[in-house]
């Protein structure tokens, strides 16, 4: 199958995308990629890599450089990152892997590899400006503690999200 995760099998040159690396590097946030010398300090300090060896910042950086576009973008593990920033905190080359990962997730999302909860959250903030709805139970609970009324209006948020094109991102493909 064309889009099958190939990380466990041999890499075939015909499946590599020679432009992937430059596509990623076009994003200013990913500019540190070239400085990475694959020492693995990022992976050693990553709490997720410790539990799921399938998620490895070091390996992902290498895969981008090799052009393993589909393997990287369709991987469900890129969404496991807990955003703890340990990877960049401990990098001897000052590579901001957290930012590179976000570029990869953005690219995956554009292609439709996107977990539904994040899409739903975007839809919610366009309505209320917050990632949660504000229902009557909450309104009363807040009133009982004399906390101010929450304004729930997502108009400005919606406008900005549309300008960034985030409203167009929909889950189309299943991450493997």
């Amino acid at each position: 199958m064309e889009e099958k995760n190939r990380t466990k099998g041999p890499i075939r040159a015909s499946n590599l995308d020679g432009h992937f690396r430059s596509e990623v590097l076009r994003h200013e946030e990913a500019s540190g990629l070239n400085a990475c010398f694959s020492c693995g300090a990022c992976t050693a300090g990553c709490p997720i890599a410790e539990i799921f060896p399938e998620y490895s910042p070091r390996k992902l950086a290498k895969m981008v450089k090799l052009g393993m576009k589909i393997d990287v973008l369709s991987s469900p593990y890129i969404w496991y990152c807990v955003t703890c920033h340990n990877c960049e905190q401990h990098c001897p080359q000052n590579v901001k892997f957290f930012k590179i990962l976000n570029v990869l997730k953005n690219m995956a999302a554009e292609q439709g590899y996107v977990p539904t909860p994040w899409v739903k959250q975007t839809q919610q903030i366009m309505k209320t400006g917050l990632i949660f709805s504000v229902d009557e139970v909450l309104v009363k609970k807040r009133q009982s503690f004399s906390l101010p009324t929450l304004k729930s209006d997502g108009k400005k948020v919606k406008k900005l999200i549309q300008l960034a094109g985030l409203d167009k991102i929909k889950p189309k493909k299943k991450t493997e």
Partner: protein
Amino acid sequence: MKKYALFLGCTTPTQVIQYELSSRWVCRYFGIELIDLEDFACCGINQINLSLEAGLLLGAMNLAHAESKGLDILTLCAACTGALAETAERLKDQTIRDRVNKRMQTIGLEYAGKTRVKHISRVLYEDVGVERIKKGIKRDLSRLLVAPHYGCHYLKPASAFDGFEDPDNPKTLHELISATGACPVQYERIHLCCGGKSFPVSKEPAFNLVQKKLDNVWNKKIDCMVVQCQTCYLMYSDQQKAINEQFKKKYKIPVLLYPQLLGLALGGDPKNDLGLDLNAVSLDERLVKKGKKRKS
């Protein structure tokens, strides 16, 4: 004392109102004026997953709202702190700021780059100071052994916090806990993340991390955990039952938000001022109630 725009974020005012309640009480106690801005919305931290640009714009919008009122921001959530501080850092770049401002014209906003972002614990540490906190202590918490949990975004990315803390060896929460009279305890893997940011997508990685942390705290027989972020709070407190079921454990660890602990020490009403009864696992009152006012 300085005035701040209070940035509540999404989760605190909807899911963990005891954090908001106790923070407001503590700030009032020390004369820190908090201004509620109607226009604040989500900080954008989760949106960066799908669009870095959307995250940047949402952060900029919030910074611009505060700037238009001439205020710096006081945050409660560690993640909002990290996201907004990092956005402010990025917007120091004139080219990026120009691009963002051009886009924000459509909602009538402009950001000049003046807003500073400070977490409530940092405000308490820097603006109030541990010495002044110590002087206000009315309840004796000296029996209480506390496991501090900092929260990743309170410390990182370090570049966004102008050297306030050393992420590898943080000290402010330890000192703030000591100031209340309670005893901060070192435990294994104190820096471990709560996993909250991947929780909406997949429970498994987050639960693994939470279980490890709870286990380390439980094995050390510590009385409670103290956190400074509502997401960390939810992961360790509200998810504790689910963790017990999944991992066949019997953890019963109370988790307090720092302003609750501080408020308790300062003599606040546990229920009405600090919302302690809203916490999923309650604190053993014997550790506090027997306490008396300090003579000094």
